[in-house]
């Protein structure tokens, strides 16, 4: 796979209205392959939009360079870049019909009429708006506007499609439907998508790879599963999925395995990733759903024992909050089964933790 887009040490800062500087991008580097679905994920204000705008040519970088198919973009203006954008609030032209919105880029490029008609027709078919060509934008629902925006930015077959939180304005059901459709479209057209969202579930479902951004920096760039299982730092661990982060210290290492002592002196064994030497302070990540509640006496293995302080039945599972002296409150998601009384608040419980459910993160400030 060759790189379609390469961002090299991109930095961008803005003058803050209160004075001083806001560093929206700090030395960001990123390489994106052909036909990849890459998501920029992060909380509001972390620099996602700035990154897209730098690629599309609406923001000049302070430092760094952007290459599209090997060509340096420099300060090339937006209209000369082979990328198109689906804007957060769509930015459809209200004075033009749906068909004219979609044909805009082709008209501007001087494509001949017959060709335009054919491609616009095909595009409208593809997004399921065949019968809507003559409608005005104001006569469409939010979901339909979303599709027009997609069709408009895809009709010229850009090398890269940038999507800035395109689904955030839709209600939940429509969102799920559009997530599938987007993924389908991307597969069918073979166009690289850079998708921006602050919704981690959406990112996990849709992406080939996810770049987690915070404070203008990429915190981690990985496939969804790797990101979920092996977050590199506390921010990523907390931002993606539910997490228990317990303070601990590495007490023994042997090859791939490694023992960690929690603040209540419980010792757990986990897999070692990266070089965490003995004595290193760490955060121990245990996902709530990776623990197992013992069904019968005599189940063996490493466990965290405590008392249930809160218990919520959510259909297939119970969500528990377990307390133990010396540890922060621990969240656990356990299968609901017939013996429900065992999961009532006040009951004691042993939560068994498999070795691969224990992930160690170097504590912030501790040299890695």
């Amino acid at each position, binding site marked *: 796979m060759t790189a379609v887009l390469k961002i090299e040490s991109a930095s961008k800062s803005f003058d803050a209205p209160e004075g001083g500087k806001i560093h929206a991008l700090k030395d960001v580097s990123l390489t994106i392959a052909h036909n990849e679905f890459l998501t920029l994920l992060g909380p509001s204000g972390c620099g996602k939009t700035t990154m897209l705008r730098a690629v*599309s*040519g*609406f923001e000049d970088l302070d430092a760094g360079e952007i290459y599209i198919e090997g060509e340096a973009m420099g300060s090339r*203006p*937006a*209209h*000369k870049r082979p*990328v*198109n*954008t689906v*804007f957060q*609030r769509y*930015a*459809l*032209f*209200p*004075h033009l019909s749906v068909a004219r919105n979609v044909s*805009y*880029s082709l008209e*501007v*490029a001087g494509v001949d009429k017959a060709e335009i008609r054919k491609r616009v027709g095909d595009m409208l078919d593809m997004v399921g708006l065949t019968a809507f060509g003559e409608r005005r934008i104001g006569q469409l629902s939010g979901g339909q506007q979303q599709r027009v925006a997609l069709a*408009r*930015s895809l009709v*010229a077959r850009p090398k890269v499609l940038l999507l800035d939180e395109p689904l955030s304005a839709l209600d939940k059901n429509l969102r799920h439907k559009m997530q599938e459709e987007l993924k389908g479209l991307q597969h069918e057209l073979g166009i690289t998508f850079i998708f921006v969202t602050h919704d981690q579930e959406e990112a996990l479902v849709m992406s080939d790879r996810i770049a987690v951004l915070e404070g203008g920096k990429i915190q981690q760039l990985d496939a969804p599963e790797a990101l979920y299982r092996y977050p590199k730092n506390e921010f990523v661990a907390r931002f993606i999925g539910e997490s228990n982060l317990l303070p601990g210290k590495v007490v023994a290492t042997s090859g791939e395995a490694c023992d960690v002592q929690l603040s209540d002196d419980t010792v757990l064994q986990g897999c070692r990733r990266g070089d965490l030497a003995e004595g290193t302070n760490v955060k121990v990540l245990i996902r709530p759903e990776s623990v197992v509640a013992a069904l019968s006496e005599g189940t063996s293995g490493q466990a965290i024992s405590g008392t249930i302080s809160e218990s919520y039945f959510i259909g297939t599972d119970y969500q528990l909050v377990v307390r133990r002296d010396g540890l922060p409150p621990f969240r656990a998601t356990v299968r609901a089964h017939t013996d429900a009384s065992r999961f009532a608040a006040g009951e004691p419980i042993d939560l068994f933790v498999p070795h691969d459910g224990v992930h160690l993160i170097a504590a912030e400030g501790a040299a890695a």
Partner: protein
Amino acid sequence: MKTRFRPGSFFLSAYGWLFLTFIYVPILLIVVFSFNANPVNMMIWDGFTLDWYRTIFGFPTTLNEQTLYVESTAQLYSAVLNSLTVAFLTTLVSTIFGTAVALAVARFRFRLKSFYRALMFMPMIMPDIILGIALLIFFVSFGFSLGLQTIVIGHTTFLCSYVFVVVSARLADMDESLEEASADLGADGWTTFRRVTLPMIAPGVIGGAMLAFIISMDDLVITYFISGVDSTTLPVHIYGMLRRGIKPEINAIATIMLLSSFVIASIGLYLRARKK
């Protein structure tokens, strides 16, 4: 939601009607008097006539010569023609300049921008008489000969402001991301302006142009200072007539002007409504 009758609301609506009466009765009187056959005292109704209109357009009338004021229809026509010429040119120039400045202020970042914007508002609040004197001094000291050209320049200086204000309001309502979307889809600056910005602000531009046209047609004070001897506009001409007493023809001229303004404003409103 409808509110039930209350004494308070009775007085409020009475006040409303009184207010409208106060504004419209004088105008209505002019229209009525323009059809009054009494040549001496127009406050006394003496039957319906179209003679005053006939006089204006130079048609034969049943009136005897002494009662007539318009000595020469040719003078009146030339004043109307001057006014139309000035209004047309002024509208053209100030619409282009006013719109361009509004775009620059709305879309670009530059130093002293708010100062610049304030400067654009100044001519609107400046007393006409001061503007008139200032322009006169300017023209004379730079050796312009007074005539239609100086009226056009003079009107343009302050009508740019009106267009600027109207177009700026429209631009403030327009979503800037539409222009970015256009650029994103491959359109250069000019294409974006032609295909997106202009259609979006067209109602404002048309509204500003009509406002400029009406104000230019109507202006007396400034024009009075900067018009030459043979470049009399309609308001200046009427003012000249008035100085020798109010005559019924003036009512007829006023009624026609009123009708034209009304037609222009209606077209403007119609165009705006259709755009929505």
